[in-house]
């Protein structure tokens, strides 16, 4: 049955957590009540990426975007928009500092500046319906590959496209496939890495939640190219929705004969199994992941013999990231030259010569529009942060952006015009990583930030090798010393030396990259470290041990007339003063929580 209008309600994890399923029910109820349920259909979709605006909904075909929906908004919305045809302005997106709202999704800068390949179906299909995927050209590429191409041709196409691993390392995918295919073996495996252990990153989850078949199709094509008949998807158990959508997708694909024996009537057979991981960050590392699939402890091993030679069960294994797989089908359908026309550099000679296609980032931190974005390679960081991200929150000053997940480095303002490109990011001490992007502003202390990320990698270190296990802990100890005002200049030297050594000699890339946040902040924000150790001050007023709250007596009496709000709100009872008189902070008692600072309406409280 055809409907006049489709309401695409986002059912990504972010929106579901914000009650979008209730919104959906309420919508259906209301449509039924108003008797228009035969004209307007409610569809649940995967994540739209603009999670900060959730629960959200897109009205198709006209593309009107509604955000921050509440159940109580629904009757009005149905009445106004779907019966009277008057879109509801107050539920639309309004850019910060502007007055008028933007009705259409495609006009909202957050979406307008994106290029969708891996996420091309996001918000447009119901991920649990294979027919909707097929209707948008799904499994065409697989048919093309199986019926008209040889495996060499497939590999060549991927090589020519310049596709590189989206999971962190940026290894050229075509070369990986080719090496794997060249190895002599009776069995080969393909694996999809959906472990996604970076805190705050949800690119892979989103892709699976909104378009699981794209991943399956990519894996199928990869398996054909390298000659594998078994595939695994390693996904963390903390992703229940993604897991369930994958299960549904695999079931449907099997029913349609797109997985299993003799796909498309050819003699190519391939099936996929799901392996659930317990969520250790290190299990995203290729050798640890394979050990985990084999039922062994998830610890990396030396990769002097590569996994494409000896991987899972010692067989040649091709491991790619979710996003990498999701790109494959479209490269086949639209051609390598289309793909390589997007991005930087030239990959026709040197596979490492450029970064092609798009990259999905999860943009978070101090920007106005946080969420998931897919941008063409080569876009500048400035464009991402200011055009898509809508600039820094509350008009604060930008300080640094950290790319590549917890082991990425911080990039300062002077390098904001850096294009997003594997080599460029690495050159400045950071990395593409899996696509985390955390924006910090003037209120963030860089030492504190470095400590924060290092504490994550330190806790997630598997503990196998000494440099990472002992080294990161000692680094953390030194950072702790610095942030509590006990650091010395020698500590800075030692910290830097230790960082370089951990990078140099760790067994796997976790240890090999964990010091990046420290090294880049030491490089670009050394003065902040020095202020911490020399002056025992934290310029961003973050490190509790190094700050002191004080009340300006003049403002307190003159403007605030000793209102006493601060002393009432202080949990430690540290603020003394008679009503209408000057108030003081008893530093012995002060727990430095900052509540008084926020509570004083007259800004009489300041931080030293």
């Amino acid at each position: 049955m055809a409907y006049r209008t489709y309401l695409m309600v986002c059912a990504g994890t972010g929106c579901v957590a914000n009650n979008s399923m209730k919104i959906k029910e309420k919508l259906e109820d209301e449509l039924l009540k108003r008797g228009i349920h035969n004209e307007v259909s409610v569809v649940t979709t995967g994540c739209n990426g603009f999670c900060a605006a959730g629960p959200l909904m897109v009205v198709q075909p006209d593309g009107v975007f509604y955000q921050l929906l509440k159940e109580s908004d629904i009757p009005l919305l149905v009445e106004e928009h779907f019966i009277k045809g008057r879109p509801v302005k107050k539920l639309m997106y309004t850019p910060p500092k502007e007055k008028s709202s933007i009705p259409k999704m495609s006009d909202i800068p957050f979406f307008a500046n994106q290029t969708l390949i891996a996420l091309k179906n996001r918000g447009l299909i119901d991920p649990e319906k294979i027919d909707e995927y097929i209707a948008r050209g799904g499994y065409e590429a697989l048919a093309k590959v199986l019926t008209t191409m040889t495996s060499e041709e497939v590999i060549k196409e991927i090589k020519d496209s310049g596709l590189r691993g989206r999971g962190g390392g940026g290894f050229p995918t075509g070369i990986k496939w080719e090496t794997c295919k060249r190895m002599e073996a009776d069995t080969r495996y393909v694996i999809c890495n959906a472990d996604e252990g970076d805190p705050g990153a949800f690119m892979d989850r989103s892709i699976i939640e909104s378009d699981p078949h794209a991943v399956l199709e990519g894996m199928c094509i990869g398996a054909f190219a390298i000659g594998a008949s078994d595939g695994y998807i390693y996904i963390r158990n903390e992703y229940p929705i993604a897991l369930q959508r994958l299960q549904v997708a695999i079931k449907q694909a099997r029913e349609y004969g797109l997985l299993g024996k003799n796909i498309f009537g050819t003699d190519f057979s391939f099936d996929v199994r799901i392996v659930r991981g317990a969520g250790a960050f290190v299990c995203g590392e290729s050798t640890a992941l394979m050990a985990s699939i084999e039922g062994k402890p998830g610890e990396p091993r030396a990769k002097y013999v590569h996994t494409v030679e000896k991987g899972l069960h010692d067989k040649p294994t091709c491991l790619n990231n979710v996003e990498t797989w999701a790109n494959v089908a479209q490269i086949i359908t639209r051609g390598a030259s289309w793909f390589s026309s997007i991005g930087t550099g030239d990959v026709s000679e040197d596979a490492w010569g450029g970064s092609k296609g798009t990259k999905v980032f999860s943009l978070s931190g101090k920007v106005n529009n946080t969420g998931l974005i897919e941008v063409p390679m080569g876009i500048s960081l400035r464009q991402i942060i200011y055009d898509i991200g809508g600039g820094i929150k509350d008009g604060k000053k930008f300080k640094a952006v950290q790319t590549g997940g917890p082991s990425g480095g911080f990039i300062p303002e002077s390098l904001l015009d850096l294009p997003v490109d594997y080599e460029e990011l690495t050159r400045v001490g950071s990395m593409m990583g899996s696509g985390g992007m955390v924006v910090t502003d003037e209120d963030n202390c860089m030492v504190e930030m470095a400590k924060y990320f290092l504490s994550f990698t330190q806790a997630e270190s598997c503990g196998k090798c000494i440099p990472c296990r002992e080294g990161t802990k000692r680094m953390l100890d030194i950072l702790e010393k610095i942030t509590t005002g006990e650091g010395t200049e020698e500590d800075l030297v030692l910290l830097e030396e230790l960082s370089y050594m951990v990078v140099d000699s760790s067994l796997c890339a976790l240890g090999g990259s964990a010091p990046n946040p420290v090294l880049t902040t030491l490089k670009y924000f050394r003065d902040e470290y020095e202020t911490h150790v020399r002056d025992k001050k934290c310029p961003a007023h973050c490190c509790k041990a190094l700050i002191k709250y004080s009340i300006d007596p003049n403002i307190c009496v003159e403007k605030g007339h000793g209102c006493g709000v601060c002393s009432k709100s202080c949990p430690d009872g540290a603020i003394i003063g008679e009503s209408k008189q000057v108030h003081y902070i008893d530093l012995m008692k002060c727990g430095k929580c900052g509540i008084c600072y926020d509570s004083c309406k007259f800004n009489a409280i300041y931080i030293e």
Partner: protein
Amino acid sequence: MIKLTIDGKQLEVFEDTSILKAAEKAGIWIPTMCHCDYIEPYGVCRLCSVEVVKGKRSRIVTACNYPVREGLTVRTNSERVKWIRKIIMELMLSRWPNVPAVKEMAEQLGISKPRFESKEKDEAEDACILCGMCVNVCNDLVGKGVLGFSKMGIEREVVLPYNERSEECIACGACAYVCPTKHIKVKSLEYERGAIQDWSLASKTAIYVPTMQAVPRVPTIDEASCINKQTGGCKACQTYCEPGAINYDMKDEEIEVEVGQILITTGYQLMDLTKMPQFGYGRLDNVYSSLDFEHMLNSTGPTNGTIQCKDGSVPRAVGIIHCIGSRDENYHKYCSRVCCMYALKFAHLIKDRTTAEVYQFYIDMRAFGKGYEEFYKRLLDEGVNMIRGKVGEVTECRVDGEKPFLKVACEDTLIGKFREIPLDMVILCPAIESNADSSDLKKIFSISQSPDKFFLERHPKLDPMSTMTDGIFIAGCAQGPKDIPDSVAQASGAAAKILSLISVGEVAVDPIKAEIVEERCSGCRICNNLCPYGAISYIDEKKISFINDMLCKGCGTCVAACPSSVITGKGFTDAQIMAEIEGLLAI
């Protein structure tokens, strides 16, 4: 073979050899802390880091597991490598400052004081340094997988599953063997519980030369403790045996030999001391059996012949308790005959090798042999304390601040007082017993046992080495407790007896025998077990009983017992006897 350069030295090795092995070949030392030859390199200490140079670029790899390739250039001692090793050692030293293995390595690399302060510092000398060798040896070599790691990052530790004693552990000791810090110790559970007698003071390997005097002096594999026999893994001895002499498929064989005469010299066993818990054997440290102590005295034994307590200290006083289970109404009434003299020997050796006081707790001194009494006198002169009286119990005492000692409570019948003697070591002299399986032998050979379970001789004075069964002889402690000279004398006598029969070449037997009329035997087998000489056997194929003429003594038991009256005595048939009776009556 491929060519590579290490520190400027050119050499040729097989492809895929590790840099570590290649360097070894070139005589270049690379420090390692997690590598051992039995297992695949684990590559975690990173101390073996070396620099691999490719063109202008170089990178750090670990020598223990990096496979060499043609044309490789390696630097094992560059500034960068030294710097990495230095920091690794600093990290290790800051965490395990007192572990000798760590300290030695640091010293070798010229690092003294670490620049770091570790919050996880473990001051123990035998701290676990997480090298993983035990885990790997258990998983990969032994194939048991009992040990593993738990927790992540800095909290990592080596554990048994659920931190419990694992039923899977075969106590092979491989983990303790590879552990560089002696953090892992093997405890014999059996010994601890006192369930079985542990005659050794130290564990021996599963492949061993039985004794230094063994002939031929070749190693043998102890199937019960060989890891390969239990898990199919290990095979370490095969890997290391250059002549390739190890064969795991060899099986124990049963060999049948036909002989005319047999001399039984099965010896004895020592009484299980845990049956008398009051003496603390298997429960208290430093309470040993006499055999344990012999082991300790042996120059090839676990302590190379030095007399020492479990903690390695020299005992200040040693007690030797006689007659444990001998001359005891509750255990064995007999005297074990050898204990007095070996106890004196022990006393002499203890006096000789240490300055310890020695106490003998005895009931009577039985120094009956040639020169024995003289030896006893000599020991009295040496100052051995002789306490006549039975020992009540041995207990452990702890006084604050001192090491625990043993206390022997006894009655000194010579002065008529109850005494308590503090000692560092107690040696028990357990009774000599006939072997546990002697009743089985008794059945097999149709010989008898006296009430004390030793085999019964034909005549205690006139024929002490023969048994009631012809051709079966006994000697040594199989017949009864005795010392070595007596055993040798008895065995020589038995051998002479046997030889005298062999030299004749034939045996003369009495003509009086029982005889079965085969056709009429019903095969009831009543006679089979009645024969005191075991001469009757049953022939399965014919389903009749059969009398072995050589063994039959013509006693007539079977003749009387046969329900079908088909057994007769040769020359003593019913008809003959009747005729004789008639003849007598006719007179």
